[in-house]
């Protein structure tokens, strides 16, 4: 049994979610090969080769794989992956975009967002916005799986010495092209990997008021998230959304400010170790999952909290 993991990278380093995915691969109990595909991958391949537990790094460096277009990448992963027992990728927007296309090309069902490995063919995953956990068994010759990063502790980024091997295969479907991207810039830790997350909801009233959360987050070294209500109202960009359809986080400490706690939001944060809720509505559902609840006006409580920590 050999597992192929599709690496997520930004052209410089390997994304932290890939380290969690490699941990899941390790639990399947097999040799692990890491596929790095893109354009201009010199340093990424070297970084990948140092990750603990990786036996081999496959490098597909070609213009067709720039920007990770699934029309070109999926045929490559399917072609290489056909010889493996499992193909894994992190359940990031990239992994979710590419892997089902790979599974369909291999004519197998995919298992999405696993949170634990029961055995080499059996896995658990949340369904119904995390309100039920399904145990799923696969008889597919190649098991195609996306991994929820918060379910697995990351492997060490150092200490490995994998062989690096170039992949010559080029697939260019010619049906899609990259036009451009607008990425949000932030000095704060990445939301999905942050130890502490401070999130704001509709109660923040406007985007300007998020400055109170940013100040608190900077004191705590925290990432800043938001509920769907805050994103839809235009307070903050959508890549800050935590929930069923946004990002899934499980930090040590999650501070929900002015968030009521709808099912869809809880789906994205209820595995946090400690949850704090600050809300002036003492009936808000968020208090049913909060370890510490404070019924107070957030505009008084958040600045006071920032001073106190």
């Amino acid at each position, binding site marked *: 049994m050999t597992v192929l993991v599709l690496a997520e990278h930004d052209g410089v380093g390997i994304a932290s979610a890939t380290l969690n995915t490699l941990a899941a691969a390790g639990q399947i109990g097999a040799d692990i090969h890491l596929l790095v595909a893109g354009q201009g991958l010199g340093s990424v391949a070297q970084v990948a080769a140092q990750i603990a537990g990786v036996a081999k790094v496959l490098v597909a460096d070609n213009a067709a794989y720039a920007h990770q277009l699934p029309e070109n990448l999926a045929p490559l992963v399917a072609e290489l992956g056909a010889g493996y027992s499992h193909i894994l990728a992190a359940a990031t927007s990239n992994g979710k975009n590419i892997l*089902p296309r790979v599974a369909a090309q291999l004519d197998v069902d995919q298992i999405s967002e696993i949170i634990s490995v029961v055995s080499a063919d059996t896995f658990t995953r949340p369904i119904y916005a995390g309100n039920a956990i399904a145990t799923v068994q696969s008889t597919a010759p190649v098991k195609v799986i996306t991994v929820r990063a918060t379910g697995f502790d990351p492997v060490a980024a150092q200490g490995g010495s994998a062989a690096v091997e170039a992949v010559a295969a080029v697939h260019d479907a010619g049906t899609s092209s990259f036009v451009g991207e607008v990425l949000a810039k932030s000095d704060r830790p990445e939301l999905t990997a942050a130890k502490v997350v401070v999130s704001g909801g509709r109660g923040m009233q406007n985007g300007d008021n998020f400055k109170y959360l940013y100040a608190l987050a900077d004191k705590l070294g925290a990432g800043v998230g938001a509920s769907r209500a805050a994103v839809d109202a235009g307070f903050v960009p959508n*890549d800050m959304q935590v929930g069923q359809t946004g990002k899934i986080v499980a930090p040590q400490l999650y501070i929900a400010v002015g968030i009521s706690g709808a*099912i869809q939001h809880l789906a994205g944060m209820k595995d946090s170790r400690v949850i704090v809720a600050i809300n002036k509505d003492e009936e808000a559902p968020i208090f049913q999952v909060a370890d*510490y609840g404070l019924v107070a006006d957030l505009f008084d409580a958040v600045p006071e909290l920032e001073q106190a920590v």
Partner: protein
Amino acid sequence: MKVLACIKRVVDYNVKVRVKADNSGVDLANVKMSMNPFCEIAVEEAVRLKELSIKEGRVATEIVVVSIGPTTAQEQLRTALALGADRAILVESAEDLTSLAVAKLLKAVVDKEQPQLVILGKQAIDSDNNQTGQMLAALTGFGQGTFASKVEVAGDKVAVTREVDGGAQTVSLSLPAIITTDLRLNEPRYASLPNIMKAKKKPLEVLTPDALGVSTASTHSTLKVEAPAARSAGIKVKSVAELVEKLKNEAKVI
């Protein structure tokens, strides 16, 4: 241009589901069912594309709405017809199908209908798979614009702005293409009573997987479904000072 919009009947998003005592699944008896929220956005986008093409004096778009599911999914297809779809197709299947089986059935419908654009939701809120659109794209060989927050058709191309982890990305796809909708693509309209009445007269074709020649066999089996571990009830603190004290000394997280 013909647009195919795909919809799924799922438990209403406001319902707090309960796991069955025998762990065989989620109890859906007597639970409110609705169109999957992402599918509503897919139908709305199809209707807007049609309205736009009529305004610009091009050949009017036909919108075909399709669902794979039980007989009762006809309710959701009628809803889509009331929202502006022209006709409906139900591929009737009582069993719970995997995303790959659904994608294969949709591929057969695509072969039959030859749409220029297929719009699906990015995920169903019951299985939370986020697979079908991508799988359909693989089976048809079309380009895919997943998690779309903006769709612009121009000539034989469609520009799709996608919601990605770091922000937004725009790709250009050759038509025909597959699009899956994110929540911010549009705000779905409500069906008016006259439109609901008119929808009753619109055509609804019922097919079966056998008639389409598609096998829905799967490599999956669900062994059990359990309730997630419950969080123990927390406490209410009276002041910020008490909160900080608890976080430092009791929870030791700051």
